[in-house]
């Protein structure tokens, strides 16, 4: 079991309340996913060539005492890269103006235990072990702002309970995916992707789906085409919720084995595994509440 939540606000003034509206949604899914939680939030894109990485130091020896400012100094010294860093305990968002591949390569070499959560111009990503309430508190989720987000609460079935195996998973830039369910062919998908030079961080089944769909998008498929190929290639049970800089997308397996419910008003689109996570939303009593059909694509634009 796991819980998924997603929220997209339609009015600019609600962007300030994105995190505040989402925290009860995430906590509402605690019974479905008490062991880990995470979310990806999409906000105004960085300008020009600027990129940002969300980083997690909890797997390093220093943990939350990781020397983040030492990291920016070292980047300056080794790569002549100017970077800014925003730190929340074991989490930081590192922003710079060069190719992210250059910085990531350096990070892999010099800080192999530092986990890169996401890369892009719009995405910030947080995930960790603990109850949804603990994780939300740890990273001040209520303070997050942006146009849309994707969240997850995990009850692990397919791989160990560790921060890097929590959801959302990311691949490439500004793409993330959360999953409720279990895939039956993740290793087949991996074996198909690895010859294309695609590297996996974990043994988690969801990562295979995430990297497959991002690979299709990178190969030039639009989101709908990529999702159609997902239906063809990914076998198992799934409700997938995905985020891109301007879209939320949801699909369910043909047997609808894993739940999803949507509430839509003039102000927002909210998605959750169960209505329990939507019940607190403003004016939800007058929302259009519906259950997404299996094997259909639901795409909402930010």
């Amino acid at each position, binding site marked *: 079991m796991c819980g998924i939540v997603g929220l997209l606000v339609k009015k600019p003034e609600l962007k300030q309340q994105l995190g505040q509206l989402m925290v009860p949604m995430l906590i509402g899914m605690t019974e479905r996913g008490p062991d880990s939680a995470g979310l990806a939030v999409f906000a105004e894109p960085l300008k020009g060539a600027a990129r940002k990485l969300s980083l997690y130091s909890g797997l390093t020896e220093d943990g939350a005492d990781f020397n983040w400012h030492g990291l920016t100094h070292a980047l300056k010294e080794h790569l002549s890269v100017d970077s800014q860093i925003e730190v929340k305990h074991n989490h930081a968002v590192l922003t710079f103006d060069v190719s992210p591949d250059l910085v990531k390569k350096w990070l892999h070499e010099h800080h192999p235990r530092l986990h890169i959560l996401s890369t892009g111009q719009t995405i910030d990503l947080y995930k960790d072990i603990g109850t949804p309430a603990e994780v939300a508190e740890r990273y001040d989720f209520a303070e997050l702002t942006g146009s849309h987000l994707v969240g997850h609460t995990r009850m692990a079935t397919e791989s160990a309970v560790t921060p890097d195996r929590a959801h959302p998973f990311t691949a490439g830039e500004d793409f993330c995916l959360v999953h409720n369910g279990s895939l039956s062919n993740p290793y087949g998908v991996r074996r198909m992707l690895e010859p294309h030079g695609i590297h996996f961080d974990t043994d988690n089944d969801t990562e295979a789906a995430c990297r497959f769909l991002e690979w299709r998008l990178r190969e030039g498929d639009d989101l709908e085409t990529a999702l159609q190929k997902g239906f063809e290639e990914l076998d198992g049970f799934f409700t997938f919720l995905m985020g891109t800089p301007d879209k939320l997308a949801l699909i369910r397996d043909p*047997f609808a084995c894993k*739940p999803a*419910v949507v509430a839509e008003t003039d102000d927002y689109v909210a998605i959750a595994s169960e*209505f*329990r*996570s939507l*019940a607190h939303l403003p004016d939800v009593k007058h929302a259009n509440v519906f*259950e997404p059909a*299996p094997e259909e694509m639901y795409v909402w634009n930010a």
Partner: protein
Amino acid sequence: MHAQPVSFDLASTPLREVNTFLHRQLTEGDQRRFEVHNPDGAHNIAVGLDQPVTVEIHGHAGYYAAGMNKKATVVVHGSAGTGVAENMMSGTVHVKGFASNGAGASAHGGLLVIDGDAGLRCGISLKGGDIVVGGSVGSFSAFMAQAGRMVICGDAGDALGDSLYEAVIYIRGTPRSLGADAQFEPMTDADYQTVDELLKRAGMQHDPKSFKRVASARGLYHWNADANQEY
């Protein structure tokens, strides 16, 4: 009888207290009408009732609402999650909105009415209950249904009535496909009467003549070595 129903607010009263109260043995003069407010998708609301009471749930119910119902009338003024009225024995459960997967699964008796659509596997393993769906049902509905009747006013997904036993399905729209061993059969006068009666009890108005009957071809009842596993 009291004039006003007893009202519970799930925003302030734990569900377990509400269900315990609904389960207590009724005596002469006890209130038999109840309301539940702010259900907010909670699971197991009004499960296991076994006395002639009426419970009106105002809002969206979570999983297994009115599960195992016996004798009681439960109305959901909203949608219902997975497994509404599962294993119902008798009584009536009425969902005014849509119902998720497995609605009325293995119901032995009673009547389940869903005004909107029902999800997948509606009436799976039905054992004698009646189900009336105002909208459409999802795939694999009435899978292995053994007894009872199902009236579908809209369409059905794939594999309607797969591996049916003696339950009978009446459908007004079109199934995307019939399941193994399910077949359309001519409507008889008794079938029209059945549909008419069930529609009236559900408070729905359609011409019984617009329904088609789906029942078991009984081809799976006996092992056929020559079928090569194809049915």
